[in-house]
């Protein structure tokens, strides 16, 4: 897609600043006045539409979450980190070749990076997933290679873990140690 096809961010530069930009010619006055008048009419109409829809209810603020945040695994600005994506649930859950009627599988994509100069060892078991009733479920790696350590500069992006749990349950947090011998972490989902 060409950038010219994308919408332009509304608002614009403050009017007072426009003439003060060196090297950038100001637009002709008549064109600006015409466009300003038309824009005013559009904004007034749009405002009425948007106000009407907004008055129907204020959406509550989203709950705090660690999804998408770089979670530092040790101290320091160049510490190894972990990024967790939103888990996806509702996949079939299989046991001994049979689909379980009352259970689901949740999948979680995890990224790791180690920008620092020293290798770090990972825990033998990835943290448990705790559901909305407080029950912990163990992780099974479904993609990516077994990961025991992160070398200096290494970055791992194709790790997916799955968790089996009863249908209707919702993942709430990850809980457990990520680094070998490291402290337990609590990741809000």
């Amino acid at each position, binding site marked *: 897609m060409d950038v010219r096809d994308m919408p332009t*961010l509304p608002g614009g530069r403050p009017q007072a600043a426009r003439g003060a930009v060196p090297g950038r010619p100001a637009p002709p006055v008549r064109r600006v006045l015409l466009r300003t008048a038309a824009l005013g009419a559009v904004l007034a109409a749009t405002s009425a539409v948007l106000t009407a829809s907004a008055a129907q209810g204020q959406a509550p603020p989203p709950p705090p979450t660690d999804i998408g945040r770089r979670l530092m695994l040790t101290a320091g600005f160049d510490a190894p980190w972990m990024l967790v994506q939103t888990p996806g649930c509702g996949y079939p859950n299989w046991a001994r070749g049979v689909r379980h009627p009352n259970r689901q599988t949740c999948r979680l994509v995890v990224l790791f990076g180690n920008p620092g100069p020293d290798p770090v060892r990972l825990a033998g078991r990835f943290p448990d997933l705790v559901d909305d009733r407080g029950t912990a479920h163990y992780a099974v790696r479904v993609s990516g290679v077994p990961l025991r350590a992160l070398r200096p*500069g290494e970055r791992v992006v194709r790790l997916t873990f799955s968790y089996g749990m009863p249908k209707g349950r919702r993942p709430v947090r990850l809980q457990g140690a990520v680094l070998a011998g490291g402290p337990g972490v609590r990741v809000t989902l």
Partner: protein
Amino acid sequence: MRAAGTPALLTALLTALVAAPVHVNPPIRRCAPEIVVADPSGQEYRSPGVGSLYALKFDEYGPPRVRAALTRGQVPVTPEGPLARADIDGDGCEDLVVGSPHVDAFRQPDAPAIGAGPGDDGLVQILWGGPGDSPGVRDTTVLPAPEAGRRGHFGWSVAAAKGLVAVGAPHEDAPGAADSGAVYLFRLSGREVRDAPRRITQDSPGVPGNGEAGDAFGWSLALADLGGLTGVPELVVGAPYEDDDGAGRQQDGQGVPHAGAVTLLADVTTAGPTRGWRLSGPSAPGARYGYALATGEGDGPAYLAASAPGVDAVNLYEVTPDGEPRPVLQWRGTGAFGFSLALGYGRLAVGAPYGGTAGTVTALPLDGGPATTLPGSGAGDRFGWAVAWADDGWLLVGAPDRGTTGAVALVPLGGGERIWLAPGDGFVPSPPSAGIGPRFKPNEQGVALDFGASMG
């Protein structure tokens, strides 16, 4: 979507507005985007960590009016260091250099196309800008790591000047010195690479220092005509994990560990012997001097800034006409002060993403005048992870941990409201999901995770 319920009059007015001419006189040249923002961890459909690259183009009135679009390279774009912009081919439009240190390029059997997959060799892409073009797949040059299997993270850092591209591979090994690092210098004629790249390490003739294990030479780069021969650039290289251990080759961990160092090589493309300077920062354990670099050239003196975020210090050098750097100022801060740097408009922008609860950015006049401190606004945002100067003195600040997607703020230094941009906000597109198929689970669809982690 909103327009579906609007009255006919509104639709007509909107149509009239869209159809109205938007060019000022004289018409501007449409070149590469002014600013590029990367999400190195973004996910396209079922491809986690492929990364996304966004072009932000200011319209005729300048910032904050901006158009945003996803930009693609020939192979996946996963930039993790600063991006480089320069008019490399001399056509009057800036070109983009994007490193992907965790992607390997390979030739497909019996096919001219270049394939790519996860790996530790790395690659670099030059996205060529030109009049009327938006950089993309059609106009891309791929520079694979010169030697496969070195696992040096080629593309960790990039820098560019006219006819020249420098690429850092800080985890490349030398015999007996793992992760000592290297820099590759590519010369180009127009859009063609002229010859095999020149490999520069701390053991190269004329380069001060010694290549030792863990130095990470090439972690950061800058390429600019700071002095010496006119039109011939200087190359500046950061090695933040260099130990301050005196002359000669030492074992890793000797002396002051990870004090860091910066190397300046004058007139780097000339045929004669290399003239180099070693710049030492605060000699403190873990200072990591050379973690970030910035250069500024113009009508006045040329400047070089280098940071030591481990001790929250930034040094400013003025480069003499013969290319020698002389220290002029040192600033101190908190919160990994100097994690990111950008020089422009007579100021140095210094990012400190761990400053306060949200991170801070400080704009420092190069004449030593009073600083302007810009605090982040959301706890844990890591505001200041990346900084770049935009048009007309606006500052672009990356906050890759803001919300679930990350965000960038357009900050008017003259005062005024910040403009936040984030994927999915209606102006910046989200990474694409597949165009067909069933309803996606959240972990399958296109996801932005780290928007603002890298900019240029």
